[in-house]
């Protein structure tokens, strides 16, 4: 009891109570904590999909025979392609690809049947729209494979090729794209929400002028900061739960690792994102500046993290930079724990880096806190 009495009498409790009351009154903050994360998770999770299927294919079939139709149906069999137009001549087909109506055009020569019947190889022409280089690459890979399979079907004497690859997709056997994006987007959402919410609460005090008053009270800088951070931390942990629940129930993520561990490490990252927000707030004078500077910081943090585009394919310099991106480490952790079910030891380097970030950001914030009025 005396301990509780002492807590209730303490400055820290007064500061904390004030923050909690402010948060409860602040509908905008509650909105910021719930609405954007939900929308971001949904849009990122649903709209970003690298799936390459149902590519529109145009056909100019000069052979127009049973064999050629068989080949076309082999192409559309596994739904990578869908035939969306038949053209009578190659020029018209070319125009369709040029205008962008078709992703690929297939021209089957009149000699198709004769070549095959006479034991020669039949060449078909395919032109692929290369504007989207990635899709074009994958599409031509598929085309080659399908042609190979068709060839094998034509030659029943070939039972199997001398070397066959048997591919097993680990962690995400169905190759569901949201499984890739959502764990990264959870990190992205925590970065955006955490830094925005904490910088806005910090800057508000400066903007309105109450910070001056607060600095004149006997409360120490760290007390003020801690009292501000603690309730935000709890609320952002609520965001972690919200995001995890959406991941589990909307996107059916497997959560193979230890959820408690995921939760704790997410807490560590929430600290980092709050630290980024406070740093932004101490760097800026007004709310408008905070929003702008956060734009300046958050875009690279997100882009270099691998949450959206893979890190391996970045140029070496950017790959190097990404090591200094806390989000990169959190995304690695969340993908490991959600999809792979990895043990802690595999994650130790990432955890260490996050600890480093949290410590450095908090130290800078505390040391800048008092001097920021100048």
């Amino acid at each position, binding site marked *: 009891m005396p301990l509780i009495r002492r807590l*209730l*009498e*303490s*400055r820290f*409790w*007064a*500061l904390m*109570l*004030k923050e909690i*009351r*402010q948060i409860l*009154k*602040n509908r905008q903050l509650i909105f910021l904590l719930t609405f954007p994360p939900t929308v971001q998770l949904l849009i990122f999770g649903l709209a970003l999909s690298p799936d390459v299927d149902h590519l529109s294919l145009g056909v100019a079939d000069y052979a127009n025979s049973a064999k050629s139709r068989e080949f076309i149906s082999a192409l559309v069999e596994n739904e990578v392609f869908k035939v969306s137009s038949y053209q009578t001549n190659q020029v018209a087909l070319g125009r369709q690809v040029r205008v962008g109506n078709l992703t690929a055009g297939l021209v089957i020569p009149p000699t198709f049947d004769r070549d095959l019947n006479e034991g020669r190889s039949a060449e078909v022409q395919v032109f692929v729209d290369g504007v989207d280089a990635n899709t074009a690459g994958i599409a031509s890979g598929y085309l080659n494979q399908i042609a190979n399979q068709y060839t094998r079907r034509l030659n029943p004497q070939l039972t199997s090729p001398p070397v066959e690859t048997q591919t097993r997709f680990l962690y995400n056997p169905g190759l569901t794209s949201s499984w890739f994006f959502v764990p990264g987007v959870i990190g992205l959402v925590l970065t955006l929400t955490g830094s925005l919410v904490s910088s806005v609460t910090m800057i508000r005090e400066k903007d*309105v*002028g*109450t910070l*001056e*008053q*607060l*600095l*004149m*009270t*006997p*409360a*120490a800088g760290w007390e003020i900061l801690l009292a501000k951070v603690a309730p935000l931390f709890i609320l952002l942990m609520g965001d972690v739960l919200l995001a995890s629940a959406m991941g589990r129930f909307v996107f059916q993520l497997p959560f193979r690792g230890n959820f408690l561990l995921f939760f704790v490490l997410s807490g560590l990252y929430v600290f980092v994102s709050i630290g980024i927000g406070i740093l932004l707030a101490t760097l800026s004078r007004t709310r408008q500046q905070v929003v702008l500077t956060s734009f300046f910081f958050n875009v690279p943090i997100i882009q270099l993290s691998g949450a959206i585009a893979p890190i391996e394919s970045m140029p070496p310099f950017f790959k190097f930079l990404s090591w200094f991106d806390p989000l990169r480490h959190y995304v690695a952790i969340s993908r490991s724990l959600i999809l792979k079910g990895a043990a802690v030891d595999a994650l130790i380097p990432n955890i260490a880096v996050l600890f480093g970030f949290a410590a450095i950001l908090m130290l800078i914030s505390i040391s800048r806190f*008092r001097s920021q*009025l*100048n």
Partner: protein
Amino acid sequence: MASSSPSTGNEMRTIHSKAVTIQVEGLYKHYGSVAAVCGIDFEVERGEIFGLIGPDGAGKTSTFQILAGVMEASAGQARILGRPPRDARLNLGYLTQGFSLYADLSILENLRYTAGLRKVPKADFRDRAADLLTLMGLEQFPNRLARQLSGGMKQKLALCCALIARPQVLLLDEPTTGVDPVSRREFWDLLAGIAIEGVTVVVATPYLDEAERCHRIGLIYEGKIQQTGTLTELRANLGLHRIEVRAENLPTAEAALQAALAPGETDLVDLQSFGDRLDILTADVDTATVQIRDILAQKQLSLQSLEANDPTLENVFVNHLRRQGADPSYRPFPYHRRQSRQLSRHQDLQQDASALPEPSVAISADRLRKVFGEFQAVKDVTLTVHYGEIYGLLGANGAGKTTTIKMLCGLLPITGGSMSLAGETQNLHRAEVRSRLGYMSQKFTLYDDLTIRHNLEFYCGVYGIPRSLHREKIEWVLETCGLAGRENTLTKRLPGGWKQRVAFGASVMHEPDILFLDEPTSGVDPLARRQFWRLIRDFARQGTAILVTTHYLEEAENCNRLAFMAAGEIVAQGSPTQIKASQSGQLIELVTSQTQTASQLLKQQLPSWRVSIFGDRLHLVLDRPEQDIGLVIQCLQKAQIEIRSQRLLPFTLEDAFIGTIQRAEVSP
């Protein structure tokens, strides 16, 4: 003396054509369930300066916005030049609070843009702009950006913008707030000139002293116009006179006279305490003088001086509101810490009887300097504030008051010089030091999004007031502010003046030894301001050292000692009476047949700051009145201007401030 002038006021108006340019009938404005304007009626004639005087939240700005055609009235009507305001917009000049200039545009660009908006022909623009800029004294730097201008220059530029389209009606919403007294004087002189040319001017101001310069005044309070009339009419309606009393041991004298205020006891009606004098209102000067002398004699207090004077506009305002029962209740502060400390101090004194009760120093600064980049914000400020003293820091916005106060309370590091606070010179951040300080900054220091009670609870907690005392302290603040029962209102719903009072309460709950108040009374209505000062005095009497800044020169009279700051320097220091007494020369009021012409003539003879127009009167500052007045009379007679009356006036602090600054500018 008060009866000599109402007739001149009426004559004044008959000189102009009787055309009514602004007509307001039964005007209402509601914001949701809040009524800002509740049935206003008034008329303003061509060429008249009509002052709309009232505290923050009284409905002034809403009225202006309706008159300017930028907001719809909820009910009633306003007609300008016989048309609805929206259709008269191009004939209006509207100067908003804060001037609404484009900070990133130069003087000329601002002017050109407004001219474009108001359809000023391109051919006319050049000449008009040149004329206006010369008139306002801005012609030397047409390309300077608006944000680089001082408050006074911004105000003049805004006036230029309002005048560029040659409007017939000028609406000025608090044009002088935050502007230094010198610029304010000049501004009013310009206004007088504009009105003479037939422009109708409606002006709002929170400064009651400068409102005396309007032709007619409307007192607005809680959305209603309470009274209208010329200054002399208003004074006559009040029917009271003001007596300034200076005596030894003012607190005792105040207590004695306060007791005599009870109805039926004496002829004294009202008492107001200032830093070094008491003001008493009475209907009958002669009887009251005798009564005051008697009362003081009974208490064996020696009287230093007793002076009868005109009541001020503030007296009119306050007494009018008092009759409406708007007086906030006064309740003594529940001291706890202080009592125990005083006891121990008392014991100390008894033990060491030989020690003189010399007040000890709370704040001292020696040649304090602050430099921001290349800008010297504060130059060599030296001052001392003792426990139990109210020390005022006066000056315009940007004079360095706030920077000084922030350095003294340890918020800003000092660039040079030395200072001590509560006996400490270093480590001012320590919790032990801070808990002895109270601070109320210029901006609102409460959390807008918390209720009043939550705000107060927070400050109780953060200053470590024992929980058992929270209730009592919070109730004191609520009752003093007249907010009992409304403690669960969100702070942002309070008008500015009320917030200030709660913020003051929040900053003193822990009974600080040293209290810093940065512009505590801006936007507070005169009644509440009086209560404010009463509380501040109470704290001082309990031994708290109080450092207060203000730009209301009239209320600086409440300080025991004060310093004028200009451009980062202290230009004068002393008690209000000392400062006024140190002014050389005399202030003379003239009533003439042609105020404006007379002013222009005299300004050719004398430095322009020595001549100013107050409504239908002229104020002259003459260093050698005996010789100079002859010259003035000669000069006016030559121009066939009749002098209707002439009398000596005591200097106000504003006169002293302007004199000090103007003389300082001439001498170096």
